[in-house]
């Protein structure tokens, strides 16, 4: 479904991704763990075609086509959704207006008001939001956790085929994390072909949404790939552990 090949990315003359390779097939769940500043969030923004990042070489293939050079909204409409690490707020733009517009951009005919209201209310309830948030401006005055929940609300309404969760777990309390993960699992239940890439520092979220593959990323590239258990290894020994670092060759 998504295949990243020999990707080199720069921002302001600083190399961030160095020969980054990743292959995710339909319906697979992957996780990436890696130290702060290693380029995980950069990766998700590059996939979305953010203009602040310069792709020096390599390619990103989504559903058999390169998406390099496409506009962010085009990439999003192809079915890629990123739940951002730090979702921003947008003054003056109501959640309902924002979501309705996003939904309609993907449809031939505009969604009926009744259908839209029904759907959004259902999802809002599922995530334990109060209904009045629908009429509030996007993330304005919202807490860190509320912003994360809003990302998941958007996700469930926009029906992506490829999801990146960039540190979804940071900022969410234990109960909220559980609730949010349940909502995502429910979504995956009914969208079996959807693939997920979870970026995280802690294995807890992976206990809820269980990945088949865990990658360790250091200095802009994947240095080790393993199964679910690698997450716990990393939690125990960190990234500087030589036994982990030394296994770089295995990956190649």
């Amino acid at each position, binding site marked *: 479904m998504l295949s990243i090949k020999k990707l080199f990315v720069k921002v302001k003359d600083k190399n961030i991704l160095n020969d980054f390779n990743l292959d995710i097939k339909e319906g697979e769940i992957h996780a990436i763990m890696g130290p702060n500043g290693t380029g995980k969030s950069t990766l998700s923004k590059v996939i979305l075609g953010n203009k602040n990042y310069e792709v020096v070489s390599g390619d990103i293939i989504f559903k058999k086509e390169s998406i390099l050079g496409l*506009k*962010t*909204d085009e990439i999003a409409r192809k079915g890629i*959704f990123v739940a951002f690490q730090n979702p921003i707020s947008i*003054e*003056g733009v109501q959640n309902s207006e*924002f979501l309705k*517009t996003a939904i309609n*951009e993907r449809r031939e005919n505009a969604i009926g008001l009744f259908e839209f209201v029904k759907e959004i209310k259902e999802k809002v309830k599922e995530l334990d939001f109060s209904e009045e948030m629908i009429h509030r401006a996007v993330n304005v005055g919202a807490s860190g956790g509320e912003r994360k929940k809003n990302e998941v609300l958007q996700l469930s309404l926009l029906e992506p085929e490829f999801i990146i969760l960039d540190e979804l777990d940071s900022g969410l309390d234990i109960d909220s994390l559980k609730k949010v993960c349940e909502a995502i699992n429910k979504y995956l239940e009914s969208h079996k072909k959807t693939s997920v890439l979870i970026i995280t520092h802690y294995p807890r979220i992976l206990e809820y949404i269980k990945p088949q593959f865990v990658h360790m990323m250091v200095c802009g590239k994947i240095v080790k790939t393993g199964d679910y258990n690698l997450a716990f290894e990393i939690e125990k020994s960190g990234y500087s552990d030589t036994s982990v670092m030394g296994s770089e060759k295995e990956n190649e």
Partner: protein
Amino acid sequence: MEIVGLNENNIRKISKTKHEEQWVLDFRLKSYEMFKKLNMPDFGPKIDLDFDKVIYYKSLEKGLNSNWDKIDNNIKCEFASLGVIDSEKYMDGIGVQYESEVIYHNMIEELVEKKVIFTSIEMAMKQYPDLVKKYFSKIVSNSDNKLAALNSAVFSGGSFIYIPPNTTLDRPLQSYFRINSRGMGQFERTLIIVDDNSHLHYVEGCTAPTYSDSSLHAAVVEIYVGKNSTCRYSTVQNWAPNVYNLVTKRALVDENGTMEWIDGNIGSKVTMKYPACILKGDNSTGTCITISVATHEQNQDSGARMIHIGKNTSSTIISKSIARLGGNATYRGKVDIKESAINSKSIVKCDSLILDKDSKSDAYPTNVCRTSKSNLEHEATVSRINEDNLFYMMSRGIDEEKATELIILGFIEKFREELPMEYAVELNQLLKRML
């Protein structure tokens, strides 16, 4: 008939064409002397106008009608395509000015019974001279500023409205102004009197086709709001980008009266317009809500003036400016709470949204409070559409244009809330067309 250039002879010609009484001609000539003495405003955008090249008067010599079928078919079609004829069904009355003369005026029967007067200023000067004389040029004097003096010298067209005491209109009255010729100057003069205990909503619209040389629109609007009365004056100006729109609008508000200016500036090359309320009566209220959008080579210099004289007076100024593609949208306003205006309050809130780095939005507020027993608040914000906002919205599949539009519409939400429904729709459509 067409009169080009500014001199005494031409002014006499305009007056003669209109078969005016001597007092009107005298007023015109005195105003012309005033015009020669006064300087152009020493603030605001640069105005590059040759007063000798302007067409000061142009008419089709068909007179004033209250039946569209009697109006030249081409012109009728033009107003039909502008939606003016259709809008009549939402109004209690409508007036239409084409070039220098009001060509159409009509209102529902009921208003005639209520003794409401809605006609052109020239007609009013002939039919109701005493009523006109009592207020005309008393609120905006011909020495107020150079362009008010110019208007006083060459005015032509514009509406006269008189709402008798204890009268409420169910729906608005509307006037529509159209400039059609290149190099045309339109100098309408509007006088509105809302007598005691009455209510009026007046709607003004204006357009012009685009020519390469400049046109001038220099109107004067005078409004008297009587005791316990309310007047709301809504404008959307969508002049072509070659029009200098230099307008003096002022209301005098008596005891317990309320004046509301709702002002949308979308078109024109340069607009300088600061609707004013003179809150003379105790407990009177003034509001001005402005939205200005300046795009490529446009300069919207707008705002409001609130002069507090009576006790317990209150005013609100809300200004929303949007600048894009190198445009300049500037707020310029004044609140003056005089010593006599004890227990008064004023709130000024101006927000601007700048869409790109070539565009500009400044604020020049002058706020004076001469009594410690009154209160003046001023708030200003400047926001920019930043790349992060756009990226976030686009990451949800919304294209850049639509995302920008959502941000702009969100920005002016407040303004939309203040508008009557049918008007909000009109404004939204205009804004969307611009984006």
